[in-house]
């Protein structure tokens, strides 16, 4: 933490001393900073950006409502990115800021506002479309002021407007947030019992746009995304049989998967999308980890242990290792093995119950749920594979389980009983900015998608 503070201080000095020397290129370089901070800092200041409300440029009955939606979604996306500091609107100069001519740079760089960037623009609703003229200005770079100047369009609906705001937010985050794409257009699959039985649902990363993927009226569990952002594999319970299913989140098309017999659960896609790892009791007595082609063929057994072996997850960076849960030591603990099943090692030496491994996209961290004693709650921790250190991200807020990484490696979603019933929450990977993103019914087992191309 001290090292980071020094970095931040140095960075601050550098920008203060040489603001005029910074080209957009050198700006991109200084954005290495948030990458360093992403998973360890708490409350470190990101790039300061002002986001005055976008203005309605053409009168239309829908324009006010949609523009209001756009403004809210854009603000939330940027705020929630975790790498930007949004300057409060109460410090902004008075006026409307719809066009380049409306912006007086010095009004935004005064000590009161002290923004480094400003995002502004206007909206036009006509002919069933919403069109947003959006700009991002680098306030400290007069030579190359406009970092983004683009017109975004979609159908004139709430969802279409949200999508436009997400696109602009993601572009801003990628440009000035350290070079890592924003996650505003990603999705989360999860399980909800809001209509009686447990079904798999899909929603936007902020909890909007939720829709049911399954309607089996039985039980569907443990959804996971294929790397293509389209296919979702999950566990389906039927009378007398429990196995895997694969559906398209787009048209609900079913892809064939040949279940191996026994109770088969907890699928996980390999990073190249060609294989599924899963747990099955096809050999009787207990579950073992197997891997197969994603249609279920070419079955290969990876674990050999008289114990429960379940919840496999691949190292998304290399595809060469699989983490999983086993109670071979007496209680459930997290192990890593090579993708061939060899070289099994336990990652957390302390006791209790450690479950739900989730491997970060950079391959360096495993988030998990840890119940340190039988009477304590589950909380979310992040295990750093290089240092062996475990960071606690949640505490004193009911059971917090089943973490899942966003593809930016900066965010986690998880399930929490902090509000009384199990709900999906998301947070930054340092445990801050927790927000509950589901409300109705019991909502569990989140799985964050990869980046999705629209």
């Amino acid at each position, binding site marked *: 933490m001290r090292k980071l503070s020094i970095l931040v201080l140095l960075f601050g000095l550098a920008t203060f001393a040489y603001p005029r020397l910074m080209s957009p290129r050198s700006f991109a370089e200084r954005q290495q900073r948030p990458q360093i901070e992403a998973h360890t800092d708490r409350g470190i200041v990101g790039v300061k950006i002002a986001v005055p409300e976008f203005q309605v440029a053409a009168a239309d009955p829908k324009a006010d409502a949609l523009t209001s939606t756009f403004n809210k979604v854009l603000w939330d996306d940027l705020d929630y990115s975790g790498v930007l500091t949004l300057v409060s609107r109460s410090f902004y100069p008075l006026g409307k800021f719809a066009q380049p001519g409306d912006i007086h740079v010095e009004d935004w760089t005064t000590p009161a506002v002290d923004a480094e960037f400003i995002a502004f623009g206007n909206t036009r609703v006509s002919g069933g479309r919403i069109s947003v003229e959006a700009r991002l200005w680098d306030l400290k770079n007069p030579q190359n002021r406009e970092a983004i100047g683009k017109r975004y369009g979609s159908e004139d609906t709430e969802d279409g407007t949200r999508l436009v705001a997400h696109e602009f937010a993601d572009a801003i985050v990628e440009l000035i947030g350290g070079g890592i794409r924003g996650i505003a257009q990603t999705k989360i699959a999860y399980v909800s019992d809001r209509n009686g039985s447990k079904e798999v649902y899909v929603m936007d990363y902020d909890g909007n746009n939720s829709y049911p993927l399954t309607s089996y009226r039985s039980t569907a569990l443990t959804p996971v995304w294929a790397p293509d952002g389209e296919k979702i594999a999950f566990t389906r319970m039927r009378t*007398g049989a429990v196995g895997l299913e694969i559906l398209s989140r787009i048209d609900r098309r079913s892809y064939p998967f040949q279940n191996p017999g*026994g109770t088969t659960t907890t699928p996980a896609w390999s990073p190249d999308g060609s294989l599924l790892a899963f747990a099955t*009791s096809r050999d009787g007595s207990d*579950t073992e980890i197997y891997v197969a082609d994603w249609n279920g063929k070419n079955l290969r057994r990876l674990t050999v242990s008289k114990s429960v072996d379940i919840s496999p997850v691949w190292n998304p960076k290399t595809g060469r290792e699989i983490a999983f849960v086993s*109670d071979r030591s007496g209680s459930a603990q997290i192990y890593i093995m090579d993708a061939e099943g060899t070289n099994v090692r336990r990652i957390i030496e302390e006791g209790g*119950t450690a479950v739900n491994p989730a491997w970060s996209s950079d391959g360096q961290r495993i988030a998990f749920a840890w119940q340190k004693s039988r009477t304590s709650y589950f909380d979310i921790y992040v295990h750093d594979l290089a240092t062996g250190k475990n960071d606690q991200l949640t505490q004193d807020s009911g059971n917090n389980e089943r973490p899942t990484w966003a593809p930016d490696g900066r965010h986690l979603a998880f399930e929490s009983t902090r509000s009384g019933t199990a709900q999906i929450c998301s947070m930054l990977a340092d445990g801050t900015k927790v927000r509950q993103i589901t409300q109705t019914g019991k909502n569990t087992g989140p799985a964050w998608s990869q980046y999705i191309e629209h």
Partner: protein
Amino acid sequence: MTLFRRKDVVLLLLIVSVLMAASCKKRVAATPPPPPPPVAPAPPAPAPAITLRAQPATIERGQSSTLQWEARNAATVQIDPEVGQVAVTGNRQVNPTSSVTYIARATGPGGTATDNARVTVNVPPPPPPPPPAPPKTPDKTISQLFLENVHEIYFDYDKADIRPDEVAKLQNNATWLKQNASVRFTLEGHCDERGSEEYNLGLGDRRANAVKEFLLSQGLAASRINTVSYGEERPVCHEQNEDCYKRNRRAAFTMNP
């Protein structure tokens, strides 16, 4: 070179034709059969008599006994049960599975006569036990009997071993299932809600398979048994206390259709 002279041939033909004529004439003129013995009209036909014996009269189940009978003044003899119409005198091996009295009935012009012989069948001392359940009544379907006789097995927290206090119950389940060999069934492993959902899927599997292994050790065929784990997804009790938890930690039996 001719073998016979013409005169000899003529003579031979003559002899042959005479012989043939004689034999034909002889057949045609065969003497009539002797008249049937005169039917005694006057004295009434003598009454039939029959004796029937079983040798040995007492057998073990699976062994056989020989019936011997001899009838006089009888045209037909019928032995029941099972033997049917037989010759007037004879013997027949029988294999009754339980004690039985054979009745032989001789019928002739003079009327009928009967005799009987009992074969006692000793059933081996411990017979295949009669069903311990109350005698089946037609009202009870096999699935009702399944529900009455096959019970859930309970487990300790985070354990899949058969508890000592559950063994007798499981033994009874096994006995009933052995006696009803046509019944195919599913063993469902269940958990209480504590612990992670995924881990409980695995734990439920271990419970179902622990019970299956016990049943296999009792001689049940593996082909009759399906196993499945529902983890913590199918609780029978929904409160959050130990009373509820212990009812949910179970292996349940369901009959397959």
